[in-house]
């Protein structure tokens, strides 16, 4: 009997399938967070009318059937994440589990907090599958050249390294101090602190730990590479083959310059976009033939990135158009529907590898750009 080839699903089919999977995931997450047995106090109280921040006049378990219905929630306000009691964000089903709390912001005032149990591990294990083993060898040791303290990134990168069989070396870095220095105009102090961070990294790299991979924020990566060049060496010569980069904006020009002049051949750079509230959106390594465009795709269905009209967040912009980034997080630990992020970008169409919308050209939202101080992180 002749064998019949099963035709590979076309992109539209895959997009439709991903959408169906997303809708199913939304229903599951809604059931979880709004069920009296497993639900999250913040959301249960919102339905019961006892949440001082938010009152919902509908029963999500009955009225939310898919992603599009999340519109009924309006927009998530990150102010709800400031201050305690933080337990209101812990689903009842997880009340007895060990809880991490990760902070974002907090240079001045009360930082925003997100509770975590396993999410950071799950997100980074999924991210691990996108890293090419050729450049991020299994078992390789890593350098974490990023923020320490109450940050998700610190533990997540260490977990990523351990998950891939390596040991992670970290530096001490308080990004809030850097931002505070810059806001006060203490440019020299901020510069000295940056040098202090780079010195720590160089000490680790030169200590014979056989480090091949690293996480770095864009500013720290360029500072490290420039310092190595001044010393007559390079990241490649130090043994680095894979760099996971994230934390702040990366432009096409920055990534092109970094690839062409700071890294050179033989090093893979994986740009990412994400934060404590969402997780990690990944981008294939930018290429000259694509004009070094960096297009990020969220880890759907656990998180969704949309690009919406600057004046009407209920309206998606057309592909290729700019808009504000709207984030939705859909995990059993954290439900965050439709949060207008402090970024803007260009809506990108689905691709074979990621059959859902992406975002490129991410930069600080124009409404906030003038007031945002980008430090080292």
């Amino acid at each position, binding site marked *: 009997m002749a064998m019949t080839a099963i035709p590979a699903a076309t992109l539209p089919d895959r997009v439709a399938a991903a959408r169906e999977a997303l809708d199913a995931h939304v229903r599951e997450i809604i059931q979880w967070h709004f069920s009296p047995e497993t639900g999250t106090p913040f959301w249960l109280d919102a339905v019961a009318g006892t949440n001082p921040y938010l009152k919902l006049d509908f029963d999500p378990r009955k009225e939310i059937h898919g992603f599009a219905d999340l519109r009924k929630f309006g927009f998530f306000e990150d102010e709800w994440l400031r201050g305690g009691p933080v337990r209101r964000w812990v689903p009842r089903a997880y009340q007895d589990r060990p809880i991490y709390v990760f902070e974002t912001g907090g240079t001045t005032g009360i930082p925003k907090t997100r509770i975590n149990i396993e999410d950071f591990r799950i997100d980074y294990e999924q991210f691990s599958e996108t890293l090419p083993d050729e450049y991020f060898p299994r078992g390789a040791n890593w350098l974490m050249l990023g923020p320490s303290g109450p940050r998700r990134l610190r533990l997540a990168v260490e977990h990523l390294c351990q998950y891939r069989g390596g040991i992670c070396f970290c530096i001490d870095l308080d990004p809030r101090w850097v931002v505070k220095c810059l806001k006060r105009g203490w440019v020299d102090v901020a510069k000295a602190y940056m040098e202090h961070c780079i010195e720590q990294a160089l000490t680790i790299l030169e200590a014979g730990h056989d480090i091949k991979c690293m996480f770095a924020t864009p500013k720290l990566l360029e500072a490290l590479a420039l310092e190595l060049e001044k010393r007559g060496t390079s990241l490649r010569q130090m043994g680095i083959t894979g760099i996971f980069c994230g934390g702040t904006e990366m432009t*096409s*020009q920055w990534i092109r310059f970094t690839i062409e*002049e700071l890294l050179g051949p033989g090093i893979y750079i994986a740009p990412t976009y994400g934060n404590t509230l969402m997780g990690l959106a990944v981008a294939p390594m930018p290429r000259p033939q694509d004009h070094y465009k960096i297009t990020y795709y969220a880890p759907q269905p656990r998180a969704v990135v949309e690009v919406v009209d600057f004046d009407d967040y209920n309206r998606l912009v057309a592909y290729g158009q700019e808009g504000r980034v709207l984030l939705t997080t859909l995990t059993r630990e954290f439900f965050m529907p439709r949060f207008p992020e402090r970024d803007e970008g260009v809506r990108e169409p689905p691709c074979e590898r990621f059959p859902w919308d992406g975002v490129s050209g991410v930069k600080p939202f124009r409404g906030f750009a003038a007031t945002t101080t980008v430090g080292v992180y």
Partner: protein
Amino acid sequence: MLHIPISRWGEPYQSMETDRVVHFQTGEVLAEVSRANAALVERDMRHARRAREVLREIPIRELLAMLKKAADLYTRAELPLGNGSQTPEQFVRMQSATTGMPEHMCRFNMEKNHFVLTNMDKILDSLTRGLDLEILCRGYGVESRGVPISFQCQSPVLGLVLPSNSPGVHTLWLPIIPLQIGLVLKPGPQEPWTPYRMTQAFIEAGVPKQAMAIYPGLGDVGAAVVNACPRSLIFGSSQTVEQYKGNPRVQVHGPGFSKILFGDDTVDEWEKYLDLMVDSVLVNSGRGCINCSGIWVSRHGRRIAQALAERMGPIEPKPPDDPQAQLAAFTVSGQAEAIYADIARDLAQPGVEDMTARFGPRLVKQERCAYLRPMVVFCSSPDANIAKKEYMFPFVTVVECPQEKMLEKIGSTLVCTAITADAKFQRALADAPHIDRLNIGPIPTIKLNWLQPHEGNIVDFLFRARAFQFDKDWIRI
């Protein structure tokens, strides 16, 4: 489309990101300018020493001759610009179209740059107080009285973070190349024209291209220039001045708060000096730091303000190619509105009066730009907030203040024209550390003597006098 690349020591580099420079009236895109990134600037500084080395291979007198040639090329020749070229007339139109300055003012600024370039030998002679320039080149020498002298260059390059709003400032960096120091230029977003045209004129005249770099970009690029260059000259607001105050690596040029002070001995004759006051406020559309923003008198303040208002209040915006145009447009969206709102808040204070109000609205909005017509504000007291303000349009306060309190109250003043023959007052003015350029007598604030230093001597900023002893049998340099 005209594309202007980054110039990495003379090598063009096209960025993945560009900024469009737009005609303020028509919206026409005049050029796309490559946008640098900060690390690119920092990395290129590994060649900063080479910039000085290539210049030191050329004797200073030859560099001065090249500048004279460059002066003519800058004002008369069609010069390469990015992927195209630019005639002098195109330069004037483009500069006017993006900065909002009337074309005749742009032409005047070209002539000013030409004058400075062709007289550079005299200017350097003055700034160095007659020093044999070979001593700067060699690093040491011997005075005619037999004493060794030495000047230590503090940086192989000078970084410049240039503004958009006042094409007149470019004269400040023209003496750098003949001092055998390289240039690292970050142009203002609306005024890429002068840095590119001037450096191109230099190159055509024989200056090595490796001595100059141009990095257009955003604020991070300006910060990178200041960070990477051991000596920088930047232009900015009072906030910028405050930020870099006391930083020996940075010379900041902020608002001038330039003033005319009348002594009690001359104030009754104020009418004789009305033209001088109007010129000091109005020339170059009031954009320069040397334009007068305050006239201080012990009496007749209201009458003086009224007379100035009658002269300047009726002035209206005219098209940029009109030879009679006296006002520059605000080409950055919202800027004129923000300035006007700031002034309106201060006008609410008691003892403050807008004398130009009766000549019609001051804020004139057009489709893609806005104008602020001249404003003359009378202040009955030096303590009014507005008495300490300066804006980049013809704006002046006439402040009543007793003569004996003036020096205590005027604050930082870049140019002070003191119209007085009172010896005691003159002595106090000469001794006042918060006055930079002092004019005694009826000299407009905008009249510069190019043979004198401006906001600190650039030679002193770049070279440090130090001890140097040598045995003539041993010295080989």
